């Protein structure tokens, strides 16, 4: 194995590659998260609604996405979906970082389906009598949700959502299979060019762990500051 020389990967061109990969990973995280959370809320509410069609849609959405590996999602959106687009749209896509767009779509849908389930069970755990009380006062379904249930559900739902965010962060690494130049892709590139396996993968692992640590710290802090208040 020889001696390890971390300066090889922490300076010069290799460093530039790794940093750009890290930044892209963070951007993937942010973009996917911002798409996933609202989508998840809508799907969760669908599954909780009294309208059968909406409930069915929600169930199909969640089960259809969760039971397929993220890698397969990525492959589908990048290799198959563009074929379904009309030619001008397809060309636009390929001109505009198709691999990033497809990665974000796959990540957002995949994370979103898990988050939808966490939101759904969080809302359900707010006692059913709360909704009854709100409805008895005269609030409609959506208003009861907004004013009584969701504020209570918020505290319950945030910890599992933060845990899903952690998963989302780690899952950005899978975008490498469709050529997205995020951290994992760049790490492989650095390793191939420098033959420094331990150093390049070591630095990348530390980068992933650092963000993971930050996300976990947010979770712990939130639970301390906003503990769930049950009666």
């Amino acid at each position, binding site marked *: *194995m020889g001696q390890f020389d971390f300066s090889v990967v922490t300076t010069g061109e290799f460093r530039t590659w790794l940093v750009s990969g890290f930044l892209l990973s963070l951007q993937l995280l942010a973009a996917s998260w911002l798409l996933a959370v609202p989508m998840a809320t809508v799907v969760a509410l669908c599954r909780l609604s009294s309208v059968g069609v909406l409930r069915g849609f929600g169930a199909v959405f969640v*089960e*259809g996405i*969760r*039971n*397929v*590996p*993220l*890698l*397969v*999602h990525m*492959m*589908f959106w990048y*290799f*198959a*979906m563009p*074929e*379904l687009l009309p030619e001008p749209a397809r060309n636009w896509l390929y001109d505009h970082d198709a691999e990033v767009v497809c990665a974000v779509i796959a990540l957002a849908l995949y994370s979103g389906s898990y988050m939808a389930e966490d939101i759904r069970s969080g809302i359900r755990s707010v006692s059913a009598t709360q909704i009854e009380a709100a409805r008895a006062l005269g609030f409609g379904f959506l208003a009861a949700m907004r004013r009584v249930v969701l504020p209570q559900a918020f505290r319950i739902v945030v910890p599992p959502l933060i845990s899903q965010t*952690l998963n989302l962060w*780690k*899952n*950005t*690494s*899978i975008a*490498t*299979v469709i050529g997205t130049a995020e951290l*994992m892709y760049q*790490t*492989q590139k650095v*390793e191939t060019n420098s033959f420094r*396996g*331990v150093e390049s*993968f070591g630095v*990348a*692992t530390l980068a*992933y*762990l650092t963000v*993971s*640590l930050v996300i*976990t710290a947010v979770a712990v802090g939130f639970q301390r500051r906003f503990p769930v208040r049950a009666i």
Partner: protein
Amino acid sequence: MSESLATYGLYFLIGQYPNGPLGGLALTILLGASALVLAMPVGILLALARISDWRVVRWPVTGMIYIVRGTPLLMVVFWAYFFLPAVTGKKTGQFTTMLIALAIFNGAYLAEVVRAGIQGVPRGQTEAARSLGLNYGQTLRRIVVPQALRNMLPSLVNQFVTTLKETSLGYIIGLQEVAFIASQVNSQVIVHPVAIYTALALTFFVLCFGLARLAGWLGVRT
């Protein structure tokens, strides 16, 4: 498209076998099952270490688990891929690499499942067993672990579903599991990517959804 199905169906299901190593869906299931079987003892040992009274055991293990859980699985696969040959002294096959990586990664997650299962057995059970005169080991073996396993069964099946999905990462190191096969077929057929990748997605869906249902049924039964 139906010609693709006929020509490539068998390849999809079992890979190059018998003209080569096992592949396709069969390999996916074999790898997933083996990895979970290996991950169980890892998980149990880690869980026992986590609830141990000795700090010198508890802290390093808790630290290791946090590190493994904060790292992407793909990274763990690469670590295994590059460094298993150095550790074992010989070239490690893709199957073995994935197997070890999955066993370690899932072992760290299973440790949590096992720990919750063991701590979910009421304290009164341990007290009753100890009051009869059973020692720590006998109490664990005959009273706590059997009850813990029953509690854990639905979670274990869910973990199996997760492991099956994780086997798809073998694609990246060239393992001929079902996603790899699908992309090989796609590169030969070229013109039907939608059909091929939808078929791949459907395969996983049927497999995983079916197992998840089983987990639910087991949860109801116990």
